[in-house]
């Protein structure tokens, strides 16, 4: 009797976690923020989200076709990039600009570097930063929620930067009833998403908590006022950045210690830009900058081999 036995190196069982179901969990975690954006900013937000998601998927598929690589859109990572990018855009962004942002994120930042796992910077963040520079006007125009009846003015961060009254209550800030990008305003939805990710063990608390705490502490020192410090935490893209972008596996450290260092660095740079820079917001820049430092952080925070002896 000749049997046809498969031979492979151990182990022969694997955990249920796959790249695909991890990414799917991230998509699920982003849904509350996406839904909140529709409630807060109206149906226009759906259009932006759809545009980004669809163009990200199409660009990825197209790229794979052109370089004759196995199709990778099934791993959901392009959907995440599309969703995250969309949630970082204002509701009245011209859709063609959103398409260009998606192109930069998927083709240039992600796939030209080799695709998922090989990019050194977060595609959605870099796409957003590119748009901020290329389309400064439409990206920084303060857009107010359809739900609130306000006279056009600055976003809370803009107001804080120029020393005006913020004019939005803390509760409204928490619920997201303020000017800003689609998905960044509703703290409640973002925190729900973050808790989901932590419970599902997709991410750990280290990066988001240190990032947010650092910003809080520095804002408190800077402003000397508890409430203002809270407004700093709830405004701009801090929560979406800390929960969803500073926790991107590919471009951030792997160990708990490394993640704490990463979060600290992000928080510090965010505050420096917010307080002293020429842009009112610094979350994206800080994450991008720390992405670049990630390999070094990894080196200095590596675990010590158990029983290892230095030669």
């Amino acid at each position, binding site marked *: 009797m000749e049997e046809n036995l498969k031979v492979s190196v151990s182990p022969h069982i694997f955990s249920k976690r796959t790249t695909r179901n991890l990414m799917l969990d991230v998509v699920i975690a982003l849904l509350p923020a996406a839904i909140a954006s529709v409630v807060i900013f109206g149906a226009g937000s759906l259009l932006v989200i759809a545009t980004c998601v669809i163009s990200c998927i199409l660009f990825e598929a197209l790229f794979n076709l052109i370089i004759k690589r196995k199709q990778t859109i099934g791993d959901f990572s392009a959907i995440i990039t599309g969703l995250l990018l969309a949630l970082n855009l204002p509701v009245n962004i011209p859709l063609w600009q959103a398409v260009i942002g998606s192109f930069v994120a998927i083709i240039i930042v992600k796939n030209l570097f080799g695709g998922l796992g090989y990019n050194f910077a977060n595609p959605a963040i870099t796409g957003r930063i590119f748009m901020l520079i290329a389309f400064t006007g439409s990206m920084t125009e303060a857009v107010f929620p359809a739900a609130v009846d306000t006279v056009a003015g600055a976003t809370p961060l803009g107001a804080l930067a120029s020393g005006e009254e913020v004019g939005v209550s803390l509760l409204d800030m928490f619920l997201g009833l303020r000017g800003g990008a689609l998905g960044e305003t509703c703290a409640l939805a973002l925190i729900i998403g973050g808790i989901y990710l932590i419970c599902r063990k997709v991410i750990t608390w280290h990066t988001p908590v240190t990032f947010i705490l650092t910003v809080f502490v520095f804002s408190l020192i800077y402003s000397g006022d508890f409430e203002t410090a809270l407004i700093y935490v709830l405004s701009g893209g801090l929560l979406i950045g800390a929960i969803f972008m500073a926790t991107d596996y590919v471009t951030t450290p792997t160990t708990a210690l490394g993640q704490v260092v990463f979060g600290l660095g992000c928080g510090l740079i965010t505050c420096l830009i917010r307080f002293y820079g020429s842009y009112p917001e610094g979350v994206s820049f800080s994450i991008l900058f720390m992405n670049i430092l990630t390999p070094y952080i990894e080196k200095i925070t*590596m675990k010590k081999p158990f029983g290892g002896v230095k030669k």
Partner: protein
Amino acid sequence: MSFFKMSGVVVPHMKNTCEMQAERMPAPKSVVIPMNMHIGAPAKPVVQEGDIVGVGQLIGEAGGFVSSPVYASVSGKVTKVDKITGTNGASADAVFIESDGQMRPFEGIKAPTVTNFEEFVAAVRDSGIVGLGGAGFPTAVKLGVKDLSLVREVLINGAECEPYITSDTRTMLDRADDIKEGIELLEKYLGAGTIIFGIEKNKPEAIAKMKEITSGDSAVSVKELPSIYPQGGEKVLIYNLTGKVVPEGKLPLDVGCIVINVTTLASIAKYIRTGMPLVEKCLTVDGSAVASPKNLIVPIGTSLRDVYEFAGGFKAEPKKVLLGGPMMGIAVKSLDQPVMKNTNATLALAEKEAERPEENPCIHCGRCVNSCPLGLNPVAFAKALSLNDCEALEELKINLCMECGCCAFNCPAKRDLIARHKLAKSELRSYQQQRAEQEKKEA
């Protein structure tokens, strides 16, 4: 006692057979007994074609200091002495015996005289016992310490952390008397001051039984280990039971410890009592292709084909057959593979479980890094390997990797990490060899 909690992974237990007392398998028609069932020099065959042998008769003598003798596991006629290819691809001598079905014990069997430490170690050497938990390191070498005062703690490994496997559990439940005797021998001849059992807490019955048989002895304690794989790894066990770290390149004895597997201990006691050397092995037969999982006591050298047939055959076509458990077991090429001294389980997996999931690109999630019990960094290994940077591999201590499989089990991209670790280790070894030669030349 431990300063930090060791990582590891939560693996499915699948201990389907833990309630099943081991059944003894009758003599198979023939056995093939390899001479290299242990770490070290292979044994040298001392029988020839046509010789008639009895159970327990010497058929291969130890081939050196780190080696172990091999005994006939059935009675019958030696049909040939020939090379076979082992699981690691290397060829080695093996003695083929056609069984007469009698299981007639060799007439020369008699209990050894043991009155002191030297005689104890000599007896262990003659018993053919090697690390039965899987490692296969000759037990006499481990016990043959030069200075007995160095031995502070003897650790009895009953962790049995691999999924499916319950053969050590059965030893603890069914051969408690042997274990008790073994403990007494250790106390008497090794002068072991402290003896600690380490048993994973998913085996409450075994823990209770071991507590029961050692209750009158204040030098012995039974400790529960967390149900986190791999508690049975030697360095992991030592750390979790004593808080001591075995430094790189050192032996457990350097920190005052000796680790013995429970089944090994029971076998030593049995040999000293009866003089019957190691000729049979209790193993767990399980896996998704197996009709009725069970524990069997089988003669060493029995082919897996015979083992599965006696166990009740397959309910699905086996697509992958393992020696050992699913985390560290070796996939064999053929069912002709004989059961060896250190075989504690064989699993037959059906189509679905046999298929290795497809590999995807590393997403740098860090699950491998955070699950490694030894604090190693598989992401950095992979990078150094791809750059062929042996100096980096050396610095990253890839030599410490015990191939436990935690990293690969946990990898969401299902990367074939262990294959890469093995490759990287062998690259590093040849690099170090070259460097040593270079240095010699220069000197």
